[in-house]
């Protein structure tokens, strides 16, 4: 049985994530009017939102401690929020600010928060091997830390994921692989790219337990993840979980979803994991007032983070040349100018801050 408190916490996490995505969407589209220009506006570049995926984040991460590692995908915000990533600095990163988690170098697909051992990346299944490595480190050090590797259902055919299953299994490592099955990999429906309906079936080929949660019920996810995480912590090895989620938006902002049947979009919106959990909480006697309170607090936190982020300074151009190494070479030269000249001419050439305007879409607009 999942306690009401836990349910409420998950609810708040999910509402935070949902509101965060909605607000990012607004911010993202600002400055991309009237014509959509990916490089314009306060948040340029690709933006992959996870509205409809929240149950998979909250239900799993509810079991995790800061010491546990999570590697997320190109669609990372809900998981980051559930894992406890610093929301302000994460937002600042997404807005490309100097005080962002990565000083503006990573952006929304490359959020790193070592305080809670969270990372994500933009290449399909790329996070699986490092998660296995974090688990390996835990095993070597004799801790009870676990690692969770998130993937989309489109990633279950990628070699790096499949190799990771085997390595985790044979080394008996404390890893939980979590597939968020939102039915689509950009425009490709699951059935077009694999014969298995149940992605957790991939585990069968590696003698690893595989479990599927057929509906995005945060409580079912919570319970399934509970077993997997406990199994891992107890030194009994990895588990593969697939969770059915729903993609409420396009693959990335700007995706018109011409390939997607309208009913499928509607269905995804109808099957709302947050509504489902709210209903459950009501059944448990939680009042609408209580829920509204949680929601308000969540919204407030999101607003605060976005407000804070937007006040943060942009990085100086010359910061682009730092951080390639934490231990930069002394004598050997690393080219560190933007182009034309030698390192010692840095000030003379590219490092002079160019005009940078938050609404400027770059050279070729």
């Amino acid at each position, binding site marked *: 049985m999942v306690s009401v408190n836990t349910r409420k916490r998950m609810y708040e996490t999910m509402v935070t994530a949902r509101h965060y995505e909605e607000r990012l969407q607004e911010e993202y589209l600002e400055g991309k009017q009237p*014509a*959509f*220009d*990916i*490089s314009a506006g306060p948040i*340029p*570049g*690709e933006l992959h939102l996870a509205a409809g995926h929240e149950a998979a984040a909250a239900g799993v991460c509810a079991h995790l401690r800061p010491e546990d590692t999570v590697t997320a995908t190109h669609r990372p915000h809900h998981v980051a929020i559930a894992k406890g990533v610093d929301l302000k600095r994460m937002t600042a990163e997404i807005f*490309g*600010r100097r005080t*962002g988690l990565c000083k*503006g*170098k*990573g*952006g929304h*697909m*490359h959020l790193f928060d070592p305080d809670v051992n969270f990372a994500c*990346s*933009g*290449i*399909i*299944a790329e996070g699986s091997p490092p998660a296995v490595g974090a688990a390996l480190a835990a095993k070597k050090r004799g801790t009870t830390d676990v690692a969770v590797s998130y993937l989309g259902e*489109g*990633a279950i*055919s*990628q*070699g*790096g994921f499949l190799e990771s299953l085997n390595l985790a299994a044979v080394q008996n490592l404390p890893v939980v692989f979590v597939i968020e099955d939102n039915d689509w*990999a*950009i*425009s*490709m429906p699951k059935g*077009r*790219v694999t014969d298995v309906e149940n992605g957790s079936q991939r585990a069968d080929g590696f003698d690893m337990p595989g479990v599927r949660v057929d509906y995005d019920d945060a409580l079912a996810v919570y319970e399934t993840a509970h077993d997997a995480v406990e199994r891992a912590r107890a030194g009994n090895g990895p588990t593969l979980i697939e969770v059915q989620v729903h993609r409420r938006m396009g693959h990335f902002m*700007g995706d018109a979803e011409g*390939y997607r049947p309208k009913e499928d979009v509607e269905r995804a919106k109808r099957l709302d994991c947050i509504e489902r959990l709210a209903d459950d909480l009501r059944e448990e006697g939680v009042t609408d007032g209580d829920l509204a309170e949680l929601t308000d607090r969540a919204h407030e936190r999101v607003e605060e983070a976005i407000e804070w982020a937007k006040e943060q300074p*942009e*990085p100086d*151009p*010359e*910061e*682009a*040349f730092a951080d*390639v190494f934490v231990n930069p070479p002394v004598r050997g030269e690393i*080219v*560190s*100018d*933007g*182009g*034309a*000249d030698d390192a010692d001419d840095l000030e003379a*050439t590219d*490092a002079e801050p*160019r005009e*940078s305007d938050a609404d400027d*879409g*770059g*050279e*070729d*607009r």
Partner: protein
Amino acid sequence: MTQQVAKRELTMSRAMVEAIAHEMRESEDVFYMGEDVADYGGIFDSTQGLLDEFGYDRVMDVPISETAYIGAAVGAAQAGMRPIAELMFVDFFGVCMDQIYNQMAKNTYMSGGSVNVPMVLTTAVGGGYNDAGQHSQTLYGTFAHLPGMKVVVPSNAYDAKGLMHSAIRDDDPVVYMFHKRLMGIGWMPAPEGPKTDVPEEDYTVPFGEAAVKREGDDATVVTLGLHVHRAMEAAEGLADDGIEAEVIDLRTLVPFDTETIVQSVRKTGRLVVVDEDYRSFGLTGEVVARVAERALDDLEAVERVAIPDVPIPYARPLEQAVNPSTADIAEAIRTVHE
């Protein structure tokens, strides 16, 4: 004589797709494989409209498993077909390079020519829209360094079509690198330059011939892809100051047209190489070295303008600091001209 020949301006993506469609009509052996190439039409419009005409069997969506499907293209090519396989972003090469460089590129040689691999590997390159370190690279040098693949990089619609015809008809593997910012995609505004007149009929742009885009006596600017347009802009700007730069668009990296560059440098004595790839151990060094080997006595000054050996950062001021701009190029031309 009152009738005018209607000129047709196409975006680079339309021109590229036109060549593919033409070749697909000509031969059943030609087909396209990639992620999101069917209904979506290619994330960067590289297959826009093909599904309607050719159906799912010839415009194939494939699982996100680049090693499997690019390697499958190799196998199909060796079996006599002429597949086109798309690597959505060149940045993803790391998950499938083995099939690309050890099979696609080497099987012809390692078989003593008894096998050949007539396939095209298309891939999107380039940054400038804040997509950060895993989605903004060009990696020209990485591909051109490894033997056995021809490597082409169109900078405009005319070349895009002609190079695609050449690529599909070529009996060797060709890596066709198209710059996102040049494609004319609705959501990613392009400079005007890449949109050119494009003949309706098929034609080829031969491999190994660089194009002199602008003549000048004062400096030679060698570049490719997006930066052809920035170099042209820089050159035009400097013309006001009486500096005339010659701008050369490499168009193909393998084979490489050393001759055109050397001839130009013999005239100008000054070389600027502009590249959107990482600066060290890549294209810029190669161009300088080829000129130094052939025309050292004529070479008076040299500058390289490229990504300064850092991953490509996300935030706008940071990315702008590392991606060579028109101003950077102009400054380099001034420097060699001094």
